């Protein structure tokens, strides 16, 4: 039964993608309908799959002796991420029906979106490292294709290329780690790596651990690879919601969570993970404070929240990070889709031109406020419970200064969230912009996500149960929802955090009174170059192009020179053989 469900949950979006593409752009309503049907069916299947989670492989495709078997393992980590990807994916597709109405290239759009959903689900369900890499690369391809979807716009194309190159650096890290693991263990299976991690020589294990960390950091836009996500906001907004908030960037978190038991014994690995998360969270929060583009603020906040998740893993709280991943997927998708409604109706993304829109777009204003409260960590909403759990884990297992910085970050989050809400929906209208109410498809998605923001924290018991029973190598204790609630409400960490959040909100109130929300001050030059990393990226790209130009001289295309090259290669092989013998 689980095997059928797994094949359906990957196969349905892929079949849907091909059908939409073949239908042709003339039949756009058919394309819309097929895409929605495919994604909703996938979502339902993934929810059913939750009941069948198990730690054993359910589909095995033997590939001969050298590659082992390609397996799909629907354990707790996998099925929870599958459900998130499929459900948020279906809501983003429903939203796209209104957002992309009238677009000339719907076939390409829906093909990439559905292909991506299937690949993301395959990535988390896969039990073979090589298979994971295969799906990883497919998600990178779809992300590139969707970021540069408006391919007449040079900014979109540049953003897509940047995202592709940086995430591919991560892909190299994943492949290198996989190959070294294969060399040490003789097998590509994830369960073998988790089981026999102590048997691998320390240097190889450290190499694998840090390569996977590089892969995760590049995919999840963490320090030092944090520059691509803000530039990827040229994508259509449903894509930003789906790929760059709720699913693809979670692949890095998934990787770290999955392999945490294997790597926690590597010296200074957990410290590196913690630092990566900490630095990303802080610099992204600082950048969000002075950003003037609505989607960029949300992008920076995504990087920051992912930093919280990575920090949690570094401190040993895998369950906390997965819980925050669930909450973040829901409220961040809500925020992005609501921002998409706003942008779609007023036609601009610049915060300096918006203002006072709340009176004209009440529904969108309300759902946006719900999402913003969850992001800031106000009690009752799901963001509060998961963020408090992370901060509590951090207080217990990491050093006090790290906890202090994350706490400060929570205050910054509250500040920039309030600033963003105020600048878009309240205050004085700075420019007379056109607006229209959100379409019905948009309202459906937004409404469902808003309800989700209120209730997904109730799923904690179920999530905990899934993770603790089906992940044999992570030692996750079984805690129920009631225990969680009481623990959080009684922990001192929670009260510190609430005080800091109140200070953040209060400070933003003060600035609002004096209307000092623009003007970056000392931070502006730092943020413009992404804390120096944009220039680093630029330098590396220039280095490669220049050396490629110079090396072009060796490719003459003439027969005799090519044969000289072949003989040179033969000479090299002979020398290596001779030395080895």
């Amino acid at each position, binding site marked *: 039964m689980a095997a059928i469900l797994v094949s359906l949950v990957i196969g349905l979006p892929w079949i849907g993608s091909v059908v939409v593409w073949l239908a042709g752009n003339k039949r756009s309503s058919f394309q819309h309908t097929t895409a929605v049907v495919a994604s909703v069916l996938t979502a339902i299947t993934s929810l059913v799959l939750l009941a069948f989670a198990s730690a054993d492989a359910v589909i095995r495709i033997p590939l001969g002796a050298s590659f082992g078997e390609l397996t799909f393992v629907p354990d707790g980590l996998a099925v929870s991420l599958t459900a998130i990807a499929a459900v948020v994916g279906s809501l983003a597709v429903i939203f796209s029906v209104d957002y992309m109405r009238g677009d000339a290239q719907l076939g390409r759009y829906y093909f990439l979106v559905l292909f991506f959903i299937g690949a993301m689900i395959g990535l988390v369900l896969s039990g073979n490292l090589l298979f994971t890499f295969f799906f990883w690369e497919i998600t990178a391809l779809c992300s590139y294709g969707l970021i540069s979807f408006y391919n007449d716009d040079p900014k979109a194309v540049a953003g897509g290329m940047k995202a592709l190159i940086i995430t591919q650096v991560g892909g190299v890290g994943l492949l290198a780690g996989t190959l070294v693991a294969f060399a040490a263990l003789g097998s590509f299976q994830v369960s073998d790596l988790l089981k026999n991690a102590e048997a691998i020589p320390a240097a190889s294990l450290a190499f694998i651990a840090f390569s996977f960390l590089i892969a995760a950091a590049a995919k999840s836009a963490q320090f030092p690879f944090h520059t691509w996500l803000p530039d990827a906001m040229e994508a259509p907004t449903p894509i930003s919601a789906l790929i760059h908030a709720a699913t693809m960037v979670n692949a890095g978190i998934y990787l770290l969570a999955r392999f945490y038991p294997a790597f926690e014994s590597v010296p200074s690995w957990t410290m590196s993970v913690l630092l990566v998360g900490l630095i990303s969270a802080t610099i992204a929060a600082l950048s969000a404070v002075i950003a003037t583009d609505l989607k960029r603020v949300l992008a920076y906040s995504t990087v920051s929240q992912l930093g919280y998740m990575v920090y949690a893993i570094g401190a040993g709280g895998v369950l906390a990070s997965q819980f925050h991943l669930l909450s973040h997927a829901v409220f961040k998708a809500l925020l992005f889709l609501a921002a998409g409604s706003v942008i779609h109706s007023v036609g601009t993304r610049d915060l300096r031109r918006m203002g006072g829109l709340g009176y004209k777009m009440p529904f969108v204003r309300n759902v946006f406020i719900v999402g913003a409260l969850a992001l800031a960590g106000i009690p009752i909403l799901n963001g509060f419970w998961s963020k408090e759990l992370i901060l509590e884990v951090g207080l217990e297992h990491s050093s006090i200064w790290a906890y202090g910085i994350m706490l400060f970050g929570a205050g910054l989050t509250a500040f920039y969230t309030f600033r963003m809400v105020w600048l878009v929906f309240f205050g004085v209208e700075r420019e007379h912009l056109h607006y229209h109410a959100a379409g019905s498809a948009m309202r459906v998605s937004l409404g469902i996500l808003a309800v989700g923001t209120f209730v997904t924290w109730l799923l904690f018991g179920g999530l905990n149960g899934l993770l603790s029973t089906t992940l044999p190598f992570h030692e996750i204790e079984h805690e129920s929802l009631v225990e969680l609630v009481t623990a959080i409400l009684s922990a001192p960490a929670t009260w510190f955090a609430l005080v800091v959040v109140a200070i953040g909100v209060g400070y933003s109130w003060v600035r609002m009174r004096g209307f000092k929300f623009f003007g970056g001050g000392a931070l502006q030059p730092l943020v413009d170059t992404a804390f120096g990393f944009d220039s680093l990226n630029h330098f590396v790209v220039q280095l490669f192009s220049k050396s490629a130009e110079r090396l072009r001289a060796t490719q003459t295309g003439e*027969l*005799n*020179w090519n044969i*000289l090259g072949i*003989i040179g290669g*033969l*000479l090299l092989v*002979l020398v290596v053989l*001779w030395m080895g013998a």
Partner: protein
Amino acid sequence: METIQYGLFLLGAIVCAYRAIVSKKILTAAIYLACISALVSAVLYLLGATQVAVMELSVGAGLVTVLLVYAVSVVGDDALDPASVVPKPLAFVMVGVVTILLGFMVFPAVEKNVDTSSLALSIALWKNRVLDVWIQIALIFSGVMGVLGLLSEKTPGRIEEIHK
């Protein structure tokens, strides 16, 4: 005794090969190629592979020579610019290093002198390696088709700007 026979034949083959490469006219080179075939065929016969030797002689000294003569008759035997693209000393050094290295590596490998009775080629081919025979047939068929296709084209448009 055997050593000297082998050595002489092979030395002749190498000299013929060198002359074939440096000769200016293609017809001369074709004659030298035929000589190489004959000498190699003799060595093969001495090794005991009699049928392969016959095949080699008939194909190498016969068929290939005729083909080359035909090609030269169509293409023309004009003297081309003799300067080679890769400078000769570089080529010499590269090839020399590769050959000496290979020679070193190969030297101690042959110590025993295994004597086997020569096996009839027909048995080896038809009983054990039937797949090889089918591959050969397929190859010959495709080669014939290819040649017919290539040579039946009437003169296509000459590409101008061949000199850059």
